[in-house]
């Protein structure tokens, strides 16, 4: 019976994860979501720190998403729907921005929230991307392209947009886990103790819950977009 327990748990975890992953468009857990694996975690961190800076200064939310394909919707509709489902930007301010790259289609799209259309007209977004994204994507340097593009739009937002500063997030040592230092220590301690006591079997449980815990990353503000921005190929 005990021998069956572990495989049964894995099976259960798989079934549950299938169930929760039914959303049609990607759930953006934090500022950078790389479904393809073109960025290393330290590269993701670099880009995220730009997004955090913009958010803290203005409340505007920039998200970066790398996917394999946007078919069958096509990149325009896929961007609008992903933006809508996650609600980038503050509610009522609509100051979100989505940088989307589809690797297999060699396509990019910047979806600008209603509230940022004034400071980031389509032509300006197009110019930023022509200078900062396309040349790097052409040589498969996703990191440089995404970093410079995020930086350029971020600079544009911080310079020209006066939103509502949000500095509350910085009270946590790891910004995307809403736990204070001592709470974090307790959780890590508990995980270690549990792991030792169960000779590692407790980590099977992790598979069960990791999906749900992942959803507790970034609480997007509930902003909207209406197809503004630019798109293109490389």
């Amino acid at each position, binding site marked *: 019976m005990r021998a069956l327990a572990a495989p049964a748990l894995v099976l259960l975890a798989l079934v549950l994860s299938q169930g929760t992953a039914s959303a049609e468009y990607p759930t953006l857990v934090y500022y950078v979501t790389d479904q393809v694996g073109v960025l290393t975690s330290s590269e993701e961190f670099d880009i995220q720190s730009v997004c955090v800076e913009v958010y803290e200064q203005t409340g505007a939310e920039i998200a970066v998403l790398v996917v394999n394909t946007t078919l069958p919707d096509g990149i325009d509709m896929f961007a*609008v729907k992903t933006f809508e489902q996650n609600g980038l930007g503050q509610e009522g301010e609509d100051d979100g921005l989505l940088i989307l790259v589809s690797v297999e289609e060699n396509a990019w799209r910047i979806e600008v929230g209603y509230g940022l259309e004034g400071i980031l007209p*389509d032509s300006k977004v*197009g110019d930023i991307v022509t200078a900062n994204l396309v040349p790097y994507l052409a040589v498969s340097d996703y990191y440089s392209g995404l970093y410079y593009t995020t930086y350029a739009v971020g600079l544009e937002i911080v310079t020209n947009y006066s939103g509502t500063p949000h500095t509350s997030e910085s009270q946590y040592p790891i910004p995307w886990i809403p736990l204070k230092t001592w709470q974090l220590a307790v959780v890590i301690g508990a995980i270690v103790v549990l792991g030792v006591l169960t000779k590692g079997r407790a980590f099977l449980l992790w598979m069960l819950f990791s999906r749900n815990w992942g959803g507790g990353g970034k609480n997007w503000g509930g902003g909207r977009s*209406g*197809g*503004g*921005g*630019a798109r293109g190929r490389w």
Partner: protein
Amino acid sequence: MALANKKLYTITALIVILAIALATVAWLVLTYNSLVRENEKVDSQWAQVQNQYQRKIDLIPTLVSTVGAYQQFEASTLTNITQLRTQWMNATTTEDQVNVTNQLDSQLATIIVTYENYPELQSITAVRDLIYELTGTENRISVERMRYNEYVQDFNAHIKSFPASFVAGWGDFEEREYYQSPNAPPPP
């Protein structure tokens, strides 16, 4: 004693009937109001689509003057676009406006194809910016139209659903029309 009991039953029955009547009236009012709201949402969303149409029309003078300087773009296309703009401004009904913008779209598509076929055009900032504005506006229109159809779908489903259909019939709510793209199959 028997009399007092009978009185109590009557009062209880009256209260129950009154409560049911009140609940029914409240439900009627709430359903009616939500239908009114949904109907208005459809209208305001169409206004949003029209805003984006207007945005496209407003782009045309810049388009003609910028693109006109380059011989790769056909002069006849530009003439057609200018004429369609005048037609749009004289259009009085929604149907006319939709017709004109659909014709305009096919002309603008020619401009974009020309732009994509000549890489030397892509290095001219003024032309490139204009194409970004143009494709951005096109995309805004399709997004607002999609949302319009979503609202129409919600409203139509609501007035056909039981028991809200009674309120819809009594309040003279009629099914709203979907936007149908000229080159796409009609929505369900």
